[in-house]
């Protein structure tokens, strides 16, 4: 017993212990082999698939965004490569976050809190890239790239950004692109958008997002455990570039419109205005300027929160396209509706004379003529030409509010025009039904009077107004205004050629519109619009002044002025008996308390510039601040 290891005495115990030990070895190695078999042979295919899946990922290939040209082929926006700085939160250890963000903030010269905000506002997972800065200059991008080891999770990415050739001139039309928002992402993800993607936010960029974006491709990319791309394995699907747009806009007309509007605004000290020019034969918008504006390149570069807040809080709302996204009382320009209605409904004939007076009395309210005198017995030419309020009070009274509303709808008021720009408002055409629904009361006779002269509840967008006069000029076809002429596919072929879109043919006798065109010409020839008749071209049109807001200490309201004018196809020798006009122009001068009608001066200047009239017919004296109700 005591010498167990001496096999001569107790060999059996020594032997059994060796046997058991040996068995343990065999069992252990056998168990390991079995497990290895289970992993590699029985489930090998599955593990290989997991391994492939986690190291390769399908990444999108951005498609070059479509370009935008004006009607003459001038490039309005293109794509330029820029450096963006992005962070993959998963790669940024929490313990180092403050230090990395502080360092990055110093390199980018931005407030670290903005970078923190961007990381915290990350829409995707921690493995998705978050854009913290874009349009970084090359030197900074290089510094950040080289500091890679000290900036874990930070990546410098080359991406394309939009460069808007004319900046502020076209901002309201083109809009801009910006990062996908939290609300948009869930829906857009299904369409292949990435959390750090850019997309059209406003203007044509938003309206034609689908066409401009193109189709993203995809490539399978090998990545390591941290998610960094190590190599591109293969292109799965090639990206298809976005389609390009050719606009109806003529850059020269756009510049002329802006120049004319800016001139008057500066002269008057006015802060808000619109000029639109369009072809009444097709609905093509040649120019659309809304001031104040902003530079969409700032958005393309990544606008700072402070600058954006400034734009948002500006009282004149520079981010709003006042041509379509705001409505205003149209004033006397709206007399077109009552005039057309009264003639077509045979309330009056072209020769019917209606007595104009210093004022009309309704109950105990006096409804004044704008010049407090009147012009005696007036036919439609006299009434429209002098813009007689008492004349049109009476016409509105003959028609009644609902018939007036009907004719307003015929001219396209009360409905969005359907122009291919986002966020258009519809304006207001008061009728009994409308007032019941909106205010729970019926329309009083005095309100019908107001509606007849474009005051009271009437509200139109500048685009609706010009479109109504375009229908007058072309003989009764209400076109849908359009900004985009052709959509050009990535292969250079036109994939959607321009086609005029008709909203409706007005249900009106053609001679009624001929009378109204000549009445509009009368406005000019009667010198209601001062020297507009002296220009070598023939212009017909209508001015308007509309009160708004709250009265001053002397009970006077501020007012805005309008003018819409059109020329015959041959502006020098043409006639308004014809329906061949190819140019309608309108101006809206908000809060323009001037001696003369500011909008008329703006349109006059535009015509001068547009037709290359060398003699200057502008009357700056009319733009002096002053007399209320001197002109209408």
């Amino acid at each position: 017993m005591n010498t167990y290891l001496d096999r001569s005495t107790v060999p059996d115990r020594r032997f059994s212990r060796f046997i058991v030990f040996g068995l343990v070895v065999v069992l252990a190695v056998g168990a390991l082999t079995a497990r290895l078999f289970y992993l590699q042979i029985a489930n090998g295919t599955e593990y290989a698939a997991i391994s492939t899946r986690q190291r390769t990922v399908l990444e999108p290939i951005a498609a070059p965004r479509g370009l935008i040209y004006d009607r003459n082929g001038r490039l309005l926006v293109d794509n330029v490569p820029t450096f963006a700085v992005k962070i993959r939160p998963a790669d940024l250890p929490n313990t180092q976050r403050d230090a990395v963000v502080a360092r990055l903030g110093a390199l980018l010269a931005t407030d670290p809190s903005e970078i923190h905000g961007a990381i915290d506002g990350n829409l995707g997972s921690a493995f998705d890239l978050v854009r913290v800065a874009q349009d970084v200059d090359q030197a900074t991008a290089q510094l950040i790239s080289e500091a890679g080891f000290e900036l874990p999770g930070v990546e410098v990415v080359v991406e394309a950004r939009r460069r808007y050739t004319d900046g502020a001139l076209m901002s309201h039309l083109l809009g801009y692109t910006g990062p996908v928002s939290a609300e948009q992402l869930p829906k857009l993800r299904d369409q292949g958008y990435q959390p750090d993607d850019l997309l059209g936010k406003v203007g044509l960029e938003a309206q034609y997002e689908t066409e401009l974006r193109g189709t993203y491709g995809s490539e399978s990319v090998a990545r390591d455990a941290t998610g960094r791309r190590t190599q591109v394995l293969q292109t799965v699907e090639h990206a298809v570039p976005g389609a390009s747009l050719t606009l109806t806009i003529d850059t020269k007309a756009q510049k002329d419109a802006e120049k004319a509007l800016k001139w008057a605004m500066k002269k008057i000290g006015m802060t808000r205005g619109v000029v639109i020019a369009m072809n009444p034969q097709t609905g093509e918008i040649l120019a659309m300027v809304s001031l104040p504006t902003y530079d969409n390149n700032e958005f393309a570069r990544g606008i700072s929160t402070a600058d954006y807040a400034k734009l948002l809080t500006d009282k004149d709302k520079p981010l709003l396209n006042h041509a379509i996204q705001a409505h205003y009382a149209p004033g006397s320009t709206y007399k077109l509706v009552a005039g057309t209605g009264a003639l077509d409904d045979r309330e009056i004939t072209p020769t019917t004379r209606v007595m104009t007076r210093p004022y009309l009395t309704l109950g105990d309210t006096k409804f004044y003529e704008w010049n407090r005198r009147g012009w005696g017995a007036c036919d439609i030419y006299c009434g429209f030409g002098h813009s007689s309020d008492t004349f049109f009070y009476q016409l509105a009274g003959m028609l009644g509010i609902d018939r007036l509303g009907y004719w307003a709808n015929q001219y396209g008021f009360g409905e969005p025009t359907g122009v291919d720009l986002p966020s258009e408002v519809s304006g207001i055409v008061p009728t009994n039904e409308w007032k019941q629904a909106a205010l729970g009361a019926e329309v009083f006779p005095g309100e019908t009077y107001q509606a007849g002269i474009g005051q009271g509840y009437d509200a139109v967008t500048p685009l609706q107004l010009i479109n109504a006069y375009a229908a007058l000029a072309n003989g009764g076809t209400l076109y849908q205004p359009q900004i985009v002429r052709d959509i050009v596919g990535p292969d250079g072929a036109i994939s959607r050629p321009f086609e005029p879109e008709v909203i409706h043919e007005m249900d009106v006798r053609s001679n009624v519109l001929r009378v109204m065109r000549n009445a509009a010409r009368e406005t000019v020839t009667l010198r209601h619009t001062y020297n507009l008749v002296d220009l070598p071209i023939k212009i017909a049109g209508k001015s308007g002044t509309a009160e708004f807001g709250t009265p001053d200490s002397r009970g006077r309201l501020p007012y805005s002025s309008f003018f819409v004018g059109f020329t015959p196809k041959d502006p020098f020798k043409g006639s308004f008996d014809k329906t061949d006009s190819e140019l309608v122009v309108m101006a809206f001068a908000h809060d323009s308390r001037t001696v003369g009608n500011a909008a008329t001066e703006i349109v006059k200047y535009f015509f001068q510039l547009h037709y290359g009239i060398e003699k200057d017919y502008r009357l700056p004296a009319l733009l002096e601040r002053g007399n209320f109700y001197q002109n209408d």
Partner: protein
Amino acid sequence: MGVIRAEPARVTDWAAKSVGAAWRAFDLQLATFAGLLAAVGLVMAYTNSVEAGSSPLEAGTTFTRGLMWAGIAVLAFIVATSFDYRWLKTLSWPVYGLQLGLLVLTLLIGDGVGGSARWVTFGPFTFQFSELAKILMIIVLAQYLASRQAKLDSLRAILGACVLVGPPLILVMLQPDLGTSLVFGAILAGMLWMSGASLLWLGALGAGVVALIPIAWNYILLDYQKQRLTSFLDPATDISGAGYQLHQSQIAVGAGGLFGRGLTNGTQAQGDFLPVQTTDFVFSVLAEELGFVGGLVLFSLFALLLWRVLVAGWRSRDPFGTLFAAGIASMILFQLVVNVGMVMGIMPITGIPLPFVTHGGASLVSLAIGLGILQSINIRQRRAEW
């Protein structure tokens, strides 16, 4: 014990034997299997160096350092083989003192990850003394148990062995290095078993260890150690922490298939999906790149080596030799099972290196010394009498 006895190891014994006789008793197979395993380790060091993106022959890579340590290991093996192991019996108390001294030194001046003290740095080299301490422990235990052959049915000798293992085990726990302290336990268990100690007392001892587990769990183990120990049960619960390593290493092993992806082609390793791929998880790289066939070759080499170690123990008519072989075999088997089991998700994460293959100089040199002593035992046996 107590007095250093020079008597059993007479210098003349060795000198009297011819070199030829010694060479005949030398176990060439044992040396070959060990050498092949070390070669596998070098191959893995090579593939890891390539995947780390460096030219493998550059100074300072895993591969060149591996080559250097392999050279040192060969020298250590030759020296240990030449050295008469019987001196170790005489010197067992100083050996024990050396062991404790090295472990205390490690605690005092050692470095490690995150405030631990695992290895000592000499200039450009680092050395993990706890690896050498395992071999020294085997020497001390072998001598202790061999000299108490007569009393092994009593509880006293068994407890004495436990008391001997206690201090080094605690010193290693303090580093803290849970894995190595478990290896000490495995060595003790294997050697007690092979010493022929009474089954009754061994069973009682085992029951006592089991009873101690809840206490150790609640008062001794650190939180991260507990987390690592349990995460293998359900890696998915902790996919970004301890479970991540397990998850990724299983994917790597599984993706290897029958023949593997080929050396240096392991995508799991290249993509840095595998953590600590040169050390504790080296087997997952091997399995991914060399496949089931490569894994079988490795297991076979280990099985053959263990066989030769056990044969050496069986042949030794000196109880010290038998017990030393048992200690070496226990150590290698335990580390193999726990390390490879961990990589394949059937053992907890303990941070135990895979003998020969895991990159690490101390481990390889210590193994070479252990196997060298075993060869010394082989060639210093008189011819079998049976």
